[in-house]
């Protein structure tokens, strides 16, 4: 069942010297750097970041045990904490966070202090501070928000936001505890709270354990939405349906909940609506599965080259989990990024509508979605499912097109005053346009053997229906595909009816395609002419078609009715008239152009540029000189 593991550890983990009695390991969530500090730094500090650029090695004096070590943003300044107590006050320093390359926040059990660092002067300037009893804190580097646990029970959380030298106190909020202890004691653990951004919004995630007394049979994750401004609100509840030890990650906007005792993980999508439950209750998207088995690569430091890769113990108790998507095994010296694999979802999620909703919100979804399309249009496909899949796709496609259109319109109307310049809409992988569908799904599907043509046509029409429903202009090549398929199966009458109801929209290429069908299906001629007429920009083509059918008078009457008579080439008409061998027709056409010449230039004769000399000769031969129109003498 290896194809069902929908989570995996990244292939190239960050490797570092594993923790030991002489080597302390620290992780900085802000820069995602692992610090391996040997002997308090005297024998070396090796910093490994997510990429080689952020890796550094240096030495520093051993001035005692290192409690915490972090670079400021951009590796500009290094801060090291060696004792619990700060010098100035009699307060315990709980930790510090860099909020900018030169701004640092210290969190003590008695409050929070925000400093600016002047590295050249080797001094700090206090920007702001706030006294408050703090149990513990959490930092979300993405949003530079620090969350403080306050009060005796610890369940009143006070967030602070930092930006460009300012510290902003956000509204505090209270986490509902399953049981209120008496007497009051610290009841909310730092381990049960995590901060992360999901779909661009900051959330505080609270792992609410089950409690026998509170009559909650299983654990759940409660999400509190923390807006920049305004009050924090409890918005989502993720049902875990089990109990035990859990850890949280956020991957691709999915909440991943690891369960240690069963060695499995669950994923939740807060945007996936559960039709059968209250609005913000969520069940796992997919059944619980373990992370894909992982083998420690050969090149690893702990492995002798000749040995085969060793299976890595997943969900080990030595794992530490960090937001959003980091798993660290300090004892083995690895830092992994957790990743979501989408193909297993296709197997595990039977409801195709829900599957599409899920996939369309994922980052690398395109190929998987296209494979779902191919699958749905395969042998076991059913039209209602196909319709749902198309509608979901086109909804996203339409939203993108509209955003693009608004952007273009805004750009054309010049830079708008006051408001910030509009951003060009990002085309995510979820935007699957007609050319994607054509290339990856429909063109091969229509060629597939063993699929009935009825089904093929039904699927194509369903796609066209869906595009129309979202008012998306259908591309010409889709119509061509429909026509090709219909013609292949001799379903001309069906084609005729589609055209009759303008299901296949008018275009010059389509009209030409129809013309080419005339020999196998004569009515295509009429359909094509009608289409050219409706286009109203294809008068020349209509004339060509009529002349090629030797309908010279018809062509002449047509061009006159649309007012183009004065500009057409007389030679073209005379050629065609002569070719019919009908002398009277030639006479009529010839005289008609002579009249035109008279009207336009005051003389019935043809200009040399019109190249009608041979026709004049021919006319004289047939009808004699006296039949030529004489110049009027007015």
């Amino acid at each position: 069942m290896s194809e069902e593991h929908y989570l995996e550890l990244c292939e190239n983990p960050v490797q570092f010297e594993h923790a030991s009695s002489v080597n302390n390991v620290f992780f900085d969530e802000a820069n995602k750097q692992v610090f391996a500090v040997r002997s308090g730094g005297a024998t070396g500090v090796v910093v490994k970041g997510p990429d080689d650029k952020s890796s550094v090695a240096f030495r520093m004096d051993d001035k005692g045990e290192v409690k915490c070590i972090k670079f400021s943003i951009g590796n500009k300044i290094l801060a090291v904490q060696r004792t619990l107590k700060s010098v100035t006050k009699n307060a315990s320093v709980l930790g510090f966070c860099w909020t900018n390359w030169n701004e640092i926040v210290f969190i003590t059990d008695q409050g929070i202090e925000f400093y600016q660092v002047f590295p050249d002067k080797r001094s700090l300037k206090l920007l702001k501070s706030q006294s408050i009893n703090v149990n513990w804190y959490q930092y979300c580097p993405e949003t530079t928000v620090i969350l403080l646990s306050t009060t005796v029970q610890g369940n009143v959380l006070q967030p602070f936001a930092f930006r460009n030298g300012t510290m902003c106190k956000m509204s505090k909020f209270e986490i509902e505890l399953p049981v209120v202890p008496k007497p009051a004691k610290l009841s909310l653990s730092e381990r049960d709270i995590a901060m992360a951004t999901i779909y661009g919004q900051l959330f505080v995630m609270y792992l609410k354990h089950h409690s026998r007394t509170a009559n909650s049979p299983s654990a759940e994750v409660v999400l509190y939405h923390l807006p920049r401004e305004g009050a924090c609100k409890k918005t989502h509840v993720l049902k875990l349906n089990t109990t035990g030890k859990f850890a949280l990650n956020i991957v691709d906007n999915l909440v991943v909940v690891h369960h240690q005792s069963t060695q499995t993980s669950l994923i939740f999508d807060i945007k996936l609506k559960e039709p059968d439950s209250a609005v913000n209750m969520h069940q796992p998207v997919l059944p619980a599965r373990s992370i894909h088995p992982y083998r420690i690569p050969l090149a690893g430091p702990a492995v002798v080259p000749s040995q085969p890769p060793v299976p890595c113990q997943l969900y080990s108790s030595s794992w530490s989990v960090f937001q959003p998507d980091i798993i660290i095994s300090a004892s083995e010296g690895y830092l992994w990024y957790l990743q979501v694999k989408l193909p297993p979802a296709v197997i595990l999620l039977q409801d195709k509508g829900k599957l599409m909703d899920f996939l369309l919100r994922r980052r690398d979804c395109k190929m998987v979605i296209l494979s779902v399309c191919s699958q749905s249009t395969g042998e076991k496909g059913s039209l209602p499912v196909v319709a749902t899949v198309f509608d979901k796709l086109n909804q996203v496609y339409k939203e993108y097109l509209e955003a693009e259109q608004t952007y273009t319109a805004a750009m054309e109307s010049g830079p708008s005053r006051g408001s910030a310049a509009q951003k060009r809409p990002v085309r995510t992988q979820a935007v699957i346009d007609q050319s994607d569908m054509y290339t990856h799904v429909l063109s091969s599907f229509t060629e597939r053997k063993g699929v009935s043509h009825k089904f093929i046509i039904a699927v194509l029409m369903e796609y066209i229906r869906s595009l129309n429903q979202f008012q998306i202009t259908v591309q010409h090549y889709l119509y061509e595909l429909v026509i090709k398929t219909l013609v292949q199966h001799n379903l001309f009458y069906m084609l005729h009816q589609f055209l009759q109801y303008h299901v296949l929209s008018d275009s010059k290429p389509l009209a030409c395609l129809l013309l080419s069908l005339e020999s196998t299906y004569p009515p295509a001629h009429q359909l094509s002419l009608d289409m050219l007429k409706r286009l109203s920009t294809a008068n020349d083509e209509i004339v060509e078609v009529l002349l090629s059918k030797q309908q010279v008078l018809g062509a002449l009457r047509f061009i006159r009715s649309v007012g183009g008579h004065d500009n057409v080439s007389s030679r073209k008409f005379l050629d065609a008239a002569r070719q019919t061998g009908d002398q009277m027709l030639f006479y009529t056409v010839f005289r008609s152009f002579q009249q035109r010449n008279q009207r336009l230039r005051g003389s019935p004769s043809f200009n040399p540029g019109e190249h009608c000399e041979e026709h004049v000769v021919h006319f004289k031969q047939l009808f004699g000189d006296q039949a030529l129109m004489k110049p009027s003498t007015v």
Partner: protein
Amino acid sequence: MLMISPRMASGMQEKQYTPSLLNFFIYNPTFGPREGEEEKKILFYHPSDVEKNEKIRNVGLCEAIVQFTRTFCPTKPAKSLHTQKNRQFFFEPEDNFWIVMVVRNPMIEKPNKDGKPPTVEYQEEEILDTVYGAVVRECYSMYKLFNGTFGRAMEAGGVELLIQKLEKFFYRYLQTLHLQSCDLLDVFGGISFFPLDKMTYLKIQSFVNRVEESLSLIKYTAFLYNDQLIWSGLEQDDMRILYKYLTTSLFPRHSEPELAGRDSPLRPEVAGNLLHYGRFLTGPTNLKDPEAKFRFPKIFVSTEDGYEELHLIVYKAMSAAACFMISASVELTRDFCEQLDGLVGPQLTLLASDICEQFTVNRRISGPEKEPQFKFIYFNHMNLAEKSTIHMRKTASVCLTSVHPDLMKILGDINCDFARVDEDEEIIVKAMTDYWVVGKKSDQRELYVILNQKNANLIEVNEEVKRLCATQFNNIFFLD
């Protein structure tokens, strides 16, 4: 026996008689080639109570005429014979099988004074060959739709079976022929299409495809609204005759419940938790009836290599009707019908109200009141599309027109002129009664317009028709 419907003429004590059916017979000369065996040639004869020798004489006469005219043109023997009192139409639908229809000319009966018998004046030139020729051909097509070819009956059970089938079919069918109201529309045998926007049309497509997918027994589907066609899975010629049957026979017979509207005592069916108004027009009238029979009419349609026999299920919800056709080799069960009812009923009801809504919206936008009311007939030979503002709604018994028969005859005459040449043409006629009649032919399309403008001149009439074309036919290639 004459079927006469007298019509009172103005003022005078004259009686006017419309054209009526005198005889209708089918024969095959190869079935009784020897003398004394002539009766064997006759497969069907109406009226049946005609004396045997007269039947033989009439058949013999037709045979002789056809034979005689063949000497002038072997490939095109006579199609009709004009006499003072009647007109005969000959049609050979299959090799050696001849259908002959004898129509009595319309006549005027003038009373005479002094107790003398009234004088009868036959109007020999009033009826058109094209119209009644088309009626005969349609008789055959209709027979073929429900029975297959004559040849098929011969193969299955010889002459006896064929005679039986002809008797059974034509006995009833001839009673439904209304020769007095036949006109140009019978010549066209067209199909009226329901105007619909693209999106609603695609929804119907989607519905048809889904039903055909879930009830895979269904081979073909046709979809109609308001007695007008929207979709046909059948080929054009088959659809043409099926459409004729549906709109002139089946639908009119079932029209009353619809006319009563939604508030009628006709109660909606409940399928699952969905209300629906679907019901079978063919087959079982009430699915819940334990005695219900699940027999449907069978029809024959053409395939690439001959014919196939199909069950015809016609299912209707409000004004939307869906025809489902299933191979006759399958036996249809209660189970299947219930499944179809449960699946199609709710969806069709929904679609019907969708279409209705769309239709009303479109009407409001286009505002038909503002348009000048033209009386016209349009026909396109390519897709058989027909449109008439002259004809009222067809019913089972009569086809009402809003113009005088004389004008209809002029239309028919123009049509005959058009049929003679391939070129595009335009004919403008000033009728006796101040009406102008205009016929236009462009490629495969024909348009006939009747204008009631007393003092209009030719130019004005021409302008008026141009205006009509610009408003009604601006989206097709129709040469002025």
